[in-house]
């Protein structure tokens, strides 16, 4: 008997150490120089917790655990090896897996305990499975949109918000009923099915540009559902891990919605698509200045300070390695090159930084919006590659613009602005960009990868030294 108690203490101690290591790992994530140590700490914590759990006296059968651990690892490895451009959909998929785990455990716990579930516990359990199941389908939908299996454009229909909110309300009401009657076995599957439906409906009207906010929000939900599971199982370790994840997702979603000057409710219920028709309407062709790769190269070579502003279009064109060559060629000529990165550039928070780091651009050259904006007035050339709305000065000046008030990168304050773009089509939000008609703006028409390649060839020689 005492050996069981000793083992229980040992398990609790491994959980305690794991908790400490998890918190430390997030602390070490604060800077790239310590971040890998953070991952290592988290791995050790995870290993300790799993080993501790395997010692649990209640476990009578190891076969299924072993098989599941092996299958999980086999699935996990390819998910860890995806290309960096595919990280957003991978992340969405892993939110779905996490939520799946939480929902399944919650379901099993319900059927093991019913009808002897205290009211309060039933409430937490209902919260766990509701958050878990809506995160599950919501994340699968988000992953599908990011992978372009599903259409990226927001799909809206009249009364969509009312339908969505009613579905959510039904789920909450059913949960209330279950709290009152915790023995109602038949109701439980409905309490999973309704949020599963809500998860789908919630993501249908959301477009690609809103994905950074939505992924962060789903991240937060996944964390909160795991914390709820911790309450149900009385596991402090799980509560802490869930709370950390929930807090992280919440901070990121607040950052993202601030960066788009929109509230959560606006992201979730006000699909961008509804606003665009009026803005894209009456545009007459206005004159723009365009330049060739040769001219662009000459201007870049004469500059002292260049800020490159990459957007998701750069990643789509797979131009990041050419951009690195450009960075190298200019740096070699003594030009100071930095990168200005908008928080919502890319499809998830920080995505652009990862893509540029992959192309071997040193991270101290990657500046976020607040740091780089004060630099633009002293910048000779701002080179915009595949970004549009985040450089639109109408966000500062035109109160009638749908993106008015959104913080932007002030590229128009640079001496010369160059924009690499396929044509004059408006950006994701369908809003015309006055930046392109400015006197100090040069449009470089063409494919981002090919055009940057052409500039690099001009700079590195092909005749001139």
């Amino acid at each position, binding site marked *: 008997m005492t050996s069981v108690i000793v083992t229980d203490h040992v398990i609790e101690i491994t959980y305690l150490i794991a908790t400490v290591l998890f*918190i430390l790992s997030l602390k070490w994530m604060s800077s790239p120089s310590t971040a890998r140590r953070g991952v290592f700490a988290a791995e050790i914590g995870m290993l300790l917790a799993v080993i501790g759990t395997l010692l649990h006296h209640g476990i009578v059968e190891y076969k299924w655990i072993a098989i599941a651990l092996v299958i999980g690892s086999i699935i996990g490895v390819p998910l860890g090896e995806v290309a960096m451009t595919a990280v957003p959909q991978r992340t969405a998929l892993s939110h779905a897996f996490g939520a799946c785990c939480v929902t399944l455990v919650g379901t099993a716990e319900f059927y093991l305990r019913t009808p002897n579930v205290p009211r309060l516990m039933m409430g937490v359990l209902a919260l766990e499975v509701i958050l878990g199941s809506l995160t599950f389908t919501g994340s699968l939908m988000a992953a599908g949109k990011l992978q372009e299996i599903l259409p990226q454009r927001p799909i809206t229909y009249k009364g969509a918000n009312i339908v969505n909110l009613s579905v959510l309300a039904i789920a909450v009401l059913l949960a209330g009923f279950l709290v009152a009657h915790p023995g109602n076995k038949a109701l439980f599957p409905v309490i999973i099915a309704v949020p599963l439906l809500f998860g789908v409906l919630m993501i249908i009207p959301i477009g690609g540009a809103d994905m950074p906010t939505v992924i962060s929000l789903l991240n937060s939900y996944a964390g909160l559902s795991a914390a709820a599971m911790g309450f149900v199982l009385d596991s402090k370790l799980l509560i802490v891990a869930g709370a950390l994840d929930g807090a992280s997702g919440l901070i990121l979603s607040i950052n993202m919605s601030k960066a788009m000057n929109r509230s959560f409710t606006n992201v979730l219920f006000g699909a961008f698509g509804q606003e665009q028709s009026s803005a894209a309407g009456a545009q007459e062709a206005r004159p723009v200045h365009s330049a060739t790769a040769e001219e662009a190269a000459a201007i870049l070579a004469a500059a002292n300070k260049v800020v490159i502003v990459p957007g998701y279009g750069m990643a789509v064109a797979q131009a990041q390695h050419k951009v690195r060559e450009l960075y190298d060629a200019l740096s070699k000529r003594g030009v100071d090159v930095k990168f200005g990165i908008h928080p919502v550039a890319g499809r998830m928070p920080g995505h652009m930084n990862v893509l540029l780091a992959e192309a071997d651009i040193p991270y101290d050259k990657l500046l976020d919006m607040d740091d780089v904006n004060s630099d633009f007035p002293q910048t000779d050339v701002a080179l915009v590659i595949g970004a549009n709305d985040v450089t639109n000065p109408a966000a500062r000046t035109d109160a009638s613009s749908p993106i008015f008030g959104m913080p932007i990168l002030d590229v128009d304050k640079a001496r010369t602005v160059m924009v690499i773009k396929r044509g004059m089509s408006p950006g994701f939000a369908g809003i015309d960009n006055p930046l392109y008609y400015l006197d100090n703006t040069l449009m470089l028409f063409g494919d981002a990868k090919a055009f940057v390649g052409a500039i690099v060839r001009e700079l590195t020689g092909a005749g001139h030294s």
Partner: protein
Amino acid sequence: MQSDLITSLYVFMLAAFIGFEVIRRVSPLLHTPLMSLTNALDAIAVVGAIILAGEHKSTLSTVLGTIAIVAATSNVVGGFIITDRMLKMFKASRPQKP
């Protein structure tokens, strides 16, 4: 039971505050690896699934627990691999080549 729940609430609240304070300091540079790391941490839910599958209280709980272990383990393994892969790519500027 009731007092356990209250203790759990305290733990949750304190952890949420720590989370906010610690994560606010994470550089925007690392927000993508941050998300994949917290995702892997979240998969600590695997401990609940392991007990569920191992206790063998009912066929349903064993089946659901086993699937839950698969889902969580793939997050642990995939999450750690990709986070480390991303972080390996972040390098500071080298001194200018001669």
